[in-house]
């Protein structure tokens, strides 16, 4: 027994050393690397999203890298939801890529507050850059009057997409007012057609209903008060009326049956539109892209129609106001090295949304937020649709960012849950106001 003790201890100690050594080494190699995956720690880096526009982003960075061998970007693609979490951790740890992909709104504001992103006001005022973007979209990159982000993707205004065949079947025209819309609900129901499809299972597709009604009834000031954190801002009569109208629409059978079980990640909500089971949907341009992918003939045969959100009688809002996601944006990480920052600034100034980048986006079904797009739209695959999206955004006096993005993360999470409860009639509009007011102080 005694003889074997020493070797056993040695073995144990060696084992522990290996264990510890590898654990420490493991810490060293884990976590996001500032220089990106390629191992090039001196170059700038950018994280992009996989999916529809992934190739467009690869194209612009590839051609930039070819033309600037001394100012290369290392590009990595992530899926949407994992990206959103990874980027926040990376920014918090000072390990963000040089170019930070974002949505503007509350998240950008939190980056600015944490001094994690560069002030790009000088770049935005540069003659080369100024005037390149639509102003309503460029404003989405501003916080407190300064520019911290520049648009890099298509514009995403929400409008109502409809099935022209079903409208013809009951002899309906796109409704211009809320009252017309409500009366058409009965017509569609009598024809055994669901008026609206919506994914009630994912919560975010419900947001534009509240945003649009709030804006049409009370104007953009309602949201501005909320974002400014004014006490009891959610108790504004426009919010309560908007929620009341939503519940009236639910009561009238405005939404397809069992809509709360319908998912959107599989495209089941949009499928109801092009398979002729539901007449309309209030949606982002991603609905268009989904239809184009799943049933291209539906688009090419001219069965897909679209129109702006109707007005509400007596409402204060401008009927041209738009709700949605103005665009995605690039910010420059404050923790990047000076060289990396220089590279990023040069790219934003010389290559962002220029040349074939614009045509690539149009091919994806995205409308880039650049000025004077008319001639290029005319040469695209679906000029009417692209023009509708473009002119809607270009002439919008106000483009409100989706509520979950515009609000801070905490209130954004709360508004999703409470709005879903409004649609399910689990809470009253008054209770909604109370619950949301509680997030203003926190």
């Amino acid at each position: 027994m005694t003889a074997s003790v020493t070797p056993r201890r040695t073995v144990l100690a060696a084992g522990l050393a290996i264990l510890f050594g590898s654990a420490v080494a493991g810490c060293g190699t884990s976590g996001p690397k500032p220089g990106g995956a390629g191992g090039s720690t001196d170059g700038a880096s950018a994280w992009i999203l996989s999916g529809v526009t992934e190739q467009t982003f690869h194209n612009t960075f590839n051609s930039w890298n070819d033309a600037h061998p001394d100012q290369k970007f290392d590009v990595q693609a992530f899926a949407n939801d994992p990206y959103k979490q990874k980027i926040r951790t990376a920014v918090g740890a000072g390990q963000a890529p040089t170019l930070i992909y974002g949505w503007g709104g509350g998240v950008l504001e939190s980056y600015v507050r944490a001094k994690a992103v560069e002030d790009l006001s000088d770049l935005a005022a540069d003659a080369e850059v100024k005037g390149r973007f639509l102003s309503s979209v460029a404003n989405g990159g501003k916080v407190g009057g300064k520019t911290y982000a520049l648009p890099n993707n298509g514009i995403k205004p929400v409008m109502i997409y409809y099935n022209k065949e079903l409208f013809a079947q009951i002899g309906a025209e796109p409704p211009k007012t809320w009252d017309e819309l409500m009366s058409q609900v009965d017509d569609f129901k009598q024809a055994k057609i669901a008026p609206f499809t919506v994914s009630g299972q994912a919560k975010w597709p419900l947001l534009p209903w509240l945003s649009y009604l709030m804006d049409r009834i009370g104007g953009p000031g309602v949201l501005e008060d909320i974002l400014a954190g004014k006490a009891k801002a959610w108790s504004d009569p426009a919010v309560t009326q908007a929620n009341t109208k939503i519940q009236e629409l639910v009561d009238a059978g405005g939404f397809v049956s069992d809509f709360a079980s319908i998912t959107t990640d599989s495209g089941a909500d949009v499928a109801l539109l092009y398979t002729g089971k539901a007449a309309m949907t209030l949606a982002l341009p991603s609905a268009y892209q989904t239809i184009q992918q799943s049933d291209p003939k539906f688009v090419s045969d001219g069965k897909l129609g679209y129109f702006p959100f109707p007005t509400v009688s007596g409402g204060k809002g401008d009927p041209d106001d738009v709700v949605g996601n103005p665009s995605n944006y690039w910010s420059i990480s404050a923790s990047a090295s000076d060289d990396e920052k220089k590279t990023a600034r040069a790219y934003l100034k010389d290559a962002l949304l220029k040349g074939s980048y614009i045509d690539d986006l149009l091919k994806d079904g995205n409308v880039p937020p650049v000025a004077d797009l008319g001639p290029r739209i005319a040469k695209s695959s679906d000029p009417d649709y692209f023009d509708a999206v473009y002119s809607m955004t270009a002439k919008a006096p106000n483009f409100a960012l989706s509520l979950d993005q515009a609000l801070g993360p905490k209130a954004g999470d709360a508004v999703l849950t409470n709005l879903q409860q409004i649609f399910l009639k689990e809470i009253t509009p008054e209770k909604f106001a109370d619950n949301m007011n509680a997030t203003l102080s926190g």
Partner: protein
Amino acid sequence: MSVLHPRTPAAPSRSTLDRRHGASGLLVLPALLMFLVFAVLPLAGAAVLSFTRWDGLSGIGWAGLHNWSAVMQDPVTGNALLLTFKIIVVSWLVQTPISLLLGVFTAGTQRYRAVLAALYFIPLLLSSAAVAIAFKAILDPHFGIGGAPGLGFLAQNWLGDPSLVLYVVIFVIAWQFVPFHTLLYQAAVRQVPTSLYEAATIDGAGRFQQFAYVTLPQLRGTIITSSTLMVTGSLTYFDVVFVLTGGGPGNSTRLLPLDMYLTGFAANDMGAASVLAVILVVIGLALALALTRFTGFSRMRSDQEGL
């Protein structure tokens, strides 16, 4: 502490105890170290974080008891606790009888039972995310299973009805985990000495009596193990629920672990999420200890005395 140092009436003398502890104490070192680094340290970290204000981005600030009082006053927390207890109880009530009976059934030696057992086992091989995504598609009221001819009655508001959705979640979880517990019971039943059944047969016991008076008592330890796994497992149900419902509709499936995740990573309130994490640990610990204590499992009583 009695759990860690069971003292039986026939305890060995002090010297043998010491010698045993000396050797085994050394062997337990690596595990103890792992436990300290990967369990105790993070746990302490979470406890400290629960008294701070942190959005995961800017600096960490001291918040005192603010998070604790905010979480305790939040009706969502109470709802999450209630849902978590509900899912523990109902899951146990649903899964235990099914897996017990299936386990007893598949413990037979006929070949068709081996084939069936392999089939039953399949759900366990699928990842939780895959299971949830598949069920999400199947349960779609318009394009799901209800669209199949003759199955129209299955086109229900499965995931959208707040009073129904929790039971749908419990069903999906049971579908996924019953095979595992079946496997436990199957193995346990095969361990029961045949002599017991022979004796019972001689005493004139029928199939039901054999099950009630031989099989069930012999499965005591397995029932406790399986129940402990089920109960503590219920506390961590996250992946399936997250993918299947995201906690909705409203808050109707926002279980405690999901609430913790959403508070931490959707609302970016790490302080409040840490409070929920600590609550979760305390409940888990209490349940596991209570289960082992009240079932007498800690006494390690033999079920086969005299054999």
